[in-house]
């Protein structure tokens, strides 16, 4: 699915060039659920931007789904972002004045070949159903909780059936309980066949993945598989009851 060879990324800043990635080699197979961890400045965001085809490496080769990304035209890269990759952001990035359904429809606006209106609408409904929000289709983001907003964003990422789901700190703005619920959703989508790469700096969140990649100073310093990823049902059960938490 993903094959990175000796990837370097150097930013030309006014002061001095910043070497954000210093030779990253990484292979991710279809169906994997990978967490990328690291402190801020470790290069994990840069890696994420490269994986998402929002940025290009200074040196090295990035093969996504057997295509060399460097050789793609800008339009082809846009099509890759549209069809092959689904993005989930820390800040949800929903359009505030649009309904949940319209937000989920957004990627289909840029899909080629063009979808018909009723087709786009029914796909958006199906995607909202997969995240359990079909009842909230006509609500605007301000009428939804943070967890629900992130679910809408996930539905938006899923609506064109991408092969790869890229999540950048997806639980960064959510409380513990909602975070666990979102991780449960990710595991469920992964079980249905989606390849997921998730950037996080919280080990609690990373434990839900099957594999954890740790970055430091622009290099991968650890890469290990988890024998038993965390179970969201058990984790939720271990949370103190909300009523108890209030009295405590």
């Amino acid at each position, binding site marked *: 699915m993903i094959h990175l060879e000796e990837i370097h990324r150097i930013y030309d800043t006014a002061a001095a060039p910043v070497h954000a990635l210093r030779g990253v080699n990484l292979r991710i197979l279809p169906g994997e659920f990978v967490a990328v961890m690291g402190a801020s400045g470790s290069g994990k965001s840069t890696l994420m931007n490269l994986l998402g085809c*929002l940025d290009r490496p200074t040196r090295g080769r990035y093969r996504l789904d057997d295509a060399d990304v460097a050789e793609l035209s*800008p339009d082809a890269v846009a099509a890759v972002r*549209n069809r092959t990759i689904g993005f989930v952001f820390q800040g949800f990035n929903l*359009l505030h004045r649009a309904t949940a359904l319209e937000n989920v429809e*957004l*990627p289909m*606006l840029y899909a080629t070949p063009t979808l018909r*209106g009723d087709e786009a609408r029914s796909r958006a409904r199906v995607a909202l159903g997969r995240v359990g929000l079909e009842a909230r289709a006509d609500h605007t983001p301000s009428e939804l909780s943070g967890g629900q907003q992130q679910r809408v964003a996930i539905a938006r990422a899923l609506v064109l059936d991408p092969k790869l789901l890229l999540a950048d700190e997806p639980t960064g703005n959510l409380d513990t309980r909602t975070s666990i619920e979102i991780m449960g959703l990710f595991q469920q989508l992964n079980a249905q066949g989606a390849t997921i790469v998730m950037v996080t700096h919280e080990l609690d969140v990373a434990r839900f993945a099957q594999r954890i990649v740790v970055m430091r100073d622009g290099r991968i310093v650890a890469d290990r598989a988890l024998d038993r990823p965390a179970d969201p049902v058990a984790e939720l059960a271990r949370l103190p009851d909300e009523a108890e938490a209030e009295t405590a």
Partner: protein
Amino acid sequence: MYRFLALFRDALRALRRNVLRTLLTMLGVIIGVAAVIAMVAIGGGASDQVKLQVDSLGENLVIVMAGGAQVGAGVLGGAGTAGTLTVADAEAIRREVPGVRHVSPEARSAAQVAAGNENCSTQVLGVGVEYPALRNWPLAGGEFFGAAAERAAARVAVLGRTVARALFGDGDPIGAVVRIDGVPFTVIGVLAAKGANMMGQDQDDAVLVPYTAALRRLLGQTNLRMINVGAESAAAMGPVQREIAALLRQRHRLPAGREDDFTIRTQEELAAFAGSTTRIMAGLLGAIAGVSLLVGGIGIMNIMLVSVTERTREIGLRLALGARRRDILRQFLIEAALLSAAGGVVGVAAGLGISRVAAWVLNWPAAAPVSVVAGAVVFSAGVGVFFGFYPARRAARMDPIEALRRE
């Protein structure tokens, strides 16, 4: 289609974000388009009006006025007062100039006209028998004087509508006697109403008498104020004008190099003169419209730049979700075009309203043709596209990573 509708919906949503700002931005375009529409409607009405008035002069009319058109004499006011045209000149024109159909001498003076206890001051026009034919001026009742009356300098009068009304009310004036400056004349006819001329004077406020009677019995002179000549066709007007000039120079024994002591105007020249004022007005309004559309366009550019900055994150998101640069460009162009086209539509409505009020106040017919209305809306959308291009390109060139990071 789906994509276009969705883009349209997004644009509408963006414009509704700040309704007041949207309206204020549209104001420049609204004023510009309203000015264009009002200009076209009122200007068109004015030129229709001028055309009507020029047509009311008569058909293929060439007017010879006494006095030259020297600097300072004025174009119409000064001419005709110099006393250089004679009845013999008029007869010579009829005899010697080819292409002439009608000739009517004209003498004119202000006079007091009385009938019974009523009296009014008006213009007395001494004219020839062909005058009604020349001026396309039918009678409402009675008859015009004939050649015999003209030869005999008969004391007969034909009243203009306004004078007839002033002296006789709704009664029938035919057969009655009116005293013009104390001289009794018998009323033999009443002219049909003709309305105001290009200078705004009421043409019906006049009494027509044979020019012979006017010269001999009222004015006591032999000089004419002007000679009205009807050419056979529109094409003949130019040659007739030149022939008359040559003939009169010869008759008045003007040496080469000396100015004419008469002025010849054709109907078209008078129309052009009257039309020039309208054109100046139209030009001024056009300039206002142009400046206003320019200012409106700059306002749109300004607001679109603000909008692009405000929505940086949204642009980054759309790029991440697979929008191509031209999709972003298109989105903002549609938004700008929608903004200014909406301004255009409101402007058209305002312009039609203004021209309707103007039509009512000026008593002119005013209407803007559909093509102009459609053109104004399309053009204002074009203004939006033109001035929206720079902000839209700025949006399309954003770096998605930077854009997504922006708060």
